[in-house]
């Protein structure tokens, strides 16, 4: 299963993801960080736009991971230099 993850520690609240795919991404009212509305999008077009959002996210906070086990979206920690798995 494909799952959208967001690392809130890296999100800089620029909202590029929301501009790209508002059905999957939203922003927290208080601190502007990303809120994943739908972490398992199935529609092909939506997934393409999620990949685009991952590519343009200035905080490199987003990723798509293949996994069977559900995990909390906000626990993923990357080293600051690592690119998300599906960048570009």
């Amino acid at each position, binding site marked *: 299963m494909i799952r959208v993850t967001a690392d809130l520690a890296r999100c*800089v*609240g*620029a*909202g*590029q993801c*929301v*501009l*790209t795919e508002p059905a999957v991404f939203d*922003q*927290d*009212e*208080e*601190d*502007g*960080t990303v809120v994943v509305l739908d972490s398992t999008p199935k529609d092909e077009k939506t997934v393409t736009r999620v990949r*685009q959002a991952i*590519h*343009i996210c*200035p*905080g*490199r906070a987003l990723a798509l991971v293949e996994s069977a086990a559900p995990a909390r979206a906000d626990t993923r920690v990357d080293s*600051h*230099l690592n690119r998300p798995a599906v960048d570009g």
Partner: protein
Amino acid sequence: MPDFPVLPLTRTCPYAPPPEHVQLQREPVARVTLPDGSQVWALSRLDDIRTMLTDPRFSADRQRAGFPLQPSGPRPSAPMRQTMIGLDPPEHGEARRAVVGEFTIRRMNALRPRIQQIVDESIDAMLAGPRPADLVPALALPVPSLVICELLGVPYADHDFFQSRSAKLLHRGVPTAERHVAANEIREYMAELIVQKEKQPADDLLGRQLVKGADREDLAGLGFLLLLAGHETTGNMISLGVMTLLERPAALAALREDPATTPEVVEELLRYFTIAEFVTSRVAREDVEIGGVLIRAGDGVLTLGNVANRDPAAFVDGDTFDTGRGARHHIAFGFGPHQCLGQNLARIELQIVFDTLFARIPDLRLAATFDELSFKDDSTVYGLHSLPVTW
């Protein structure tokens, strides 16, 4: 061993990066000499710049030794604390996190009716005035300045004061001493505004920050930063955008026909001009390898964003202005943790200005030949000094 070309910063054609920058594509991490004699690295590949701007070993501290192109514009005479644009982690994240909620897409969309009103009133005033008109003071500068008033909660009665001082601050025809006076007046005004909002709680950006316990001086600095970062930049994109569309009747006709395409036009204009490429300069805090080249601690790094936004590895036929491109991976707003805080406000302002202006004045045209136009070749942010138009 890289050679050391002197690097002109000026564009010979407004629609293209300087030829010297284009040549640097052959040497994407190059040692270059700036007009002030200092040597820095110049990056021209999109991927390298994105990597550099997300690497915390590069500092955005504009006062740090080695930072390229130290800003020389008028600043208030009293020392100001660093604002977020010059902070590094962890202070940067704290400062940005404190206000980023004010700039969410939802918040910015809520400003649309007020921005529309500001744009309409500026166009009313222009139409009531003589022809030809200069679009820069008539529309391009007042719109973003009044929008920042709105954002900060500057009372209506003070708009003229605020607007005239910020116009002075930006006008290179105004003597430097006078521009310093204007900078100080804005700073004092900002401090006074904050005192007033402390007395009388207000539901605006400054008011809400005060409720959250923000420090007064930091808040005055933030107000000043928003004005500096959001006024001239947006104004330049308005005038460059109007010029570009007037010069391209097919693109203009398409925009008029279907306003739903305006966001794409705006995005392509941002990419095509990349007016603030020198704002994303950095200085290395440690030795770092970028694109296979070792950059030493203390070395300055320049980002040739305009070339990078035409990088053949990232954009098909990047020298062509193509409003149908749908490319959002440009770095006109920078990249990494400092990526423009006001980008979604700027996008909305530009969309409303273009949609409204060309709908309300269908026969708008340039009142000068292209060769007569005066571009900001000497400025760190590219734009037009004036744009004569008639109708």
